[in-house]
């Protein structure tokens, strides 16, 4: 079998993976980056609105303390305080660094980096490039990677991480182009595989967001946390059917867009009289959901989002992608007409549990960063905090992993273990193809998640979905697909389904357990938040099944407590 030795294997070439690779390479480590899509195509390219960092270029009063407080409060007090502190303190430097790497941000009148308003941020804080911030970020990092001594193996699907005695040894990947398996031997592994949006039917996420990192880490004993916290972005497209779920950036509301129901009422005045359209995402999403549920929705099952009052020139300059997206897909001219929008699954707040300083997991040698990692965003992620997250914690993961790697010996992946994994993967292939089509199972799973673990949840719906997940698990074992190992999407779906099922089970079990409503998690049978549930939900692999435990949210030190409004319970 083809073997690749390295100090650090980075799984994922989104912003977190590339930033980690750069940091690790700069620290002197030999780095290999793998990703299942092409280099430069990762989900991160889709990010629109911007990167949150308290530069204070537009609102001079902004500082890290304010950014910290917003993150904790809007995260429904579940965020790890240290992660939030690190984010708030280091985001600005990461933005300036990105600029030094060659990124070109929009500018203020006096030539500094421009910042825009976004929901839940007290000040105008999002550094942006029109509505293509993610593209600029990823392209800039891609350039940096290509000009360093970093090996990139794209379109390589990692199917397993090996660990022995709580310590990682390596991983195995399938090279899609050649159908060849590659065994990686690495001193440290960084998981930067992004989120799990694709486990829902209506989502803004790209094809690759199938929770692979969650499954890979869970299977070797890593802990997951807060998986029930799934962010529904308030505004996704509802029409035409194929575009359903496609994101309408919060930038539209940030720039002054207003939400109206079918009666023409600006309903956010009722739900959040102060911040209105710019209230936190969970609040706006539930408000829209309610308006639609109560019969004040549009014909296509959404509400209106209108920005036409700002005029053609402004809209085309500030929101060019939105303009062309609606023109292209829905025949709507947003400079003249209102858009129709409804909530769409957008982001996983939870993820692999890591140490705030080093991004290390509970498995020796395994690190995680970006959307795949949990802890920072608590019960609700603020817009712009993810791009900041992937830079800040990507860099930290890369540095800590190199430190670890440079002090360790190269572990060995035995031929027998490697072969066993290749046989496992290959066993999905069968000429007769009698087993179920993995895509059909994925469709059922997405439907079940949408119905039972959606924006508003209750015990009976959650239990039903949990049962369906366990049924799907047993049918998953029988999946067979025709064809070879070369670029076989059926096979890739079968592999993704394994991980999707892990994530779905973790989301659903955690959601059942959390008997309160907090942040993005809303239980109609427990509509209040409760002091008792001021905890983080931790999932891990038990001897026979998934186990769950709750841990108290780490109390923050006095110096930080002073900065935030205390949590109130009614």
């Amino acid at each position, binding site marked *: 079998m083809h073997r690749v030795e390295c100090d650090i294997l980075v799984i994922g070439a989104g912003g977190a993976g590339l930033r980690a690779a750069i940091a690790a390479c700069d620290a002197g480590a030999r780095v290999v980056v793998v990703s299942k899509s092409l280099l430069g195509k990762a989900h991160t390219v889709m990010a629109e609105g911007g990167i949150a960092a308290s530069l204070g270029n537009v609102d001079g009063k902004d500082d890290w303390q304010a950014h910290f407080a917003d993150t904790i409060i809007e995260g429904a007090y579940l965020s790890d305080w240290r992660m939030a502190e690190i984010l708030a303190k280091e985001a600005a430097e990461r933005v300036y660094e990105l600029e030094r790497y060659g990124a070109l941000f929009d500018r203020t009148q006096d030539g500094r980096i421009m910042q825009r308003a976004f929901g839940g941020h007290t000040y105008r804080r999002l550094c942006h490039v029109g509505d*293509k911030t993610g593209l600029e970020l990823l392209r800039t990092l891609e350039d940096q990677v*290509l*000009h360093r001594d970093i090996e990139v193996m794209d379109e390589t699907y990692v199917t397993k991480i090996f660990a022995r005695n709580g310590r990682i040894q390596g991983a195995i990947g399938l090279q899609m182009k050649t159908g060849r398996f590659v065994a990686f031997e690495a001193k440290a592994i960084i998981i930067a595989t992004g989120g799990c949006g694709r486990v829902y039917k209506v989502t803004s996420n*790209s094809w690759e967001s199938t929770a692979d990192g969650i499954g890979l880490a869970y299977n070797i004993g890593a802990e997951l946390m807060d998986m029930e916290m799934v962010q529904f972005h308030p505004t996704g497209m509802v029409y*035409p059917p*194929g575009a359903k779920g496609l994101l309408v950036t919060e930038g539209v509301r940030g720039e002054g867009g207003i939400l109206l129901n079918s009666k023409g009422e600006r309903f956010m005045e009722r739900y959040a009289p102060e911040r209105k359209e710019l209230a936190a995402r969970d609040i706006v999403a539930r408000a829209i959901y309610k308006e639609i549920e109560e019969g004040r929705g549009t014909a296509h099952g959404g509400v209106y989002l209108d920005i036409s009052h700002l005029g053609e020139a402004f809209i085309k300059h500030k929101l060019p992608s939105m303009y062309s997206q609606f023109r292209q897909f829905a025949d709507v001219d947003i400079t003249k007409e209102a858009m129709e929008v409804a909530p769409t699954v957008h982001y996983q707040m939870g993820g692999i549990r890591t140490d705030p300083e080093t991004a290390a997991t509970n498995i020796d040698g395994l690190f995680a960063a970006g959307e795949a990692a949990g802890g920072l965003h608590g019960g609700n992620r603020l817009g712009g905090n993810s791009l900041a997250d992937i830079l800040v914690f990507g860099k930290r993961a890369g540095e800590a992993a190199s430190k670890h790697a440079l002090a360790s010996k190269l572990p060995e992946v035995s031929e027998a273990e490697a072969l066993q994994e290749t046989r496992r993967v290959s066993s999905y292939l069968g000429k007769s193809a009698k087993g179920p089509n993995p895509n059909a199972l994925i469709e059922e799973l997405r439907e079940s998640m949408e119905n039972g673990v959606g924006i508003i949840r209750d015990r009976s719906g959650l239990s039903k979905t949990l049962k369906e997940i366990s049924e799907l698990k047993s049918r998953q074992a029988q999946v067979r697909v025709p*064809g070879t190992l070369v670029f*076989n999407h059926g096979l890739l*779906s079968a592999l993704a389904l394994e991980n999707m099922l892990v994530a779905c089970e973790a989301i659903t079990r955690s959601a059942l357990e959390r008997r309160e409503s907090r942040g993005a998690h809303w239980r109609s049978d427990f509509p209040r938040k409760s002091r008792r549930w001021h905890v983080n939900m931790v999932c891990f692999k038990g001897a026979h099944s998934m186990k769950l435990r709750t841990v108290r949210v780490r109390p923050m030190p006095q110096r930080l407590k002073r900065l935030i409004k205390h949590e109130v319970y009614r």
Partner: protein
Amino acid sequence: MTTIRLSIRRCDPMAGIAPHFQEYDVPVEEGMVVLEAVRYAAEKIDTTIAVRWNCEAARCGSCAAEINNVPALMCKTRIDDLAGRITVAPMRAYPIVKDLVADVSANYETERRMPAFKPFSNLKEPWKMWQPDVERSKEFRRCIECFLCQDVCHVIREHETGYFGPRHVVKAASLDTHPLDSLDRSKHMNEEGGIGYCNITKCCQEVCPEKIRITDNAIIPEKEGAADGAYDPLMRFIRSAKKDIEG
């Protein structure tokens, strides 16, 4: 529900399957795009169809193909904009991996050779730049690396010249027009990049899904070594004066 007949070019060099078209009947919904139809075939009818996509939103540039012989993004091409029969084939300027998937890896090697962003030395931090300057570079930074422009270029399709191709000229322009970049990549584009082979047919510019004016705004200035600084000498003078101030 109406259905359409979709004709997909199948080919699997590693399994010895020669190129041929295969037809699939796919139900269509209002506003449906070609990618959805191809995915329907690949997910429900024959899971061995190889096709590349990711964002489904015309953002990532993964799903480039030739639709009725025209290079286009599958996720951006609406079925109701096409008359009658729909054929989908991979980009022809690249080796085929399988079915609709082309091997575009050579582009990353070209990118590795492109002189990286190099800011002027001794700039005062935080850097200052002006929106109109930034704006000009932003056009080139819209590129989603779909490589459709490369696919349509006859120099690349028909000749082995070593010409880097329009995407890479756009890349050079995106760096050269950075207000604080100190290099001029036109020499690289002329000497190593073979830009001289381009005879300004503008085909690339016509297929670009991001509507980048590749030939007018990137190729011509790079050919003439005028993408750096500015198009008019006055701007260049102002810029060099600014450099002195920021020193």
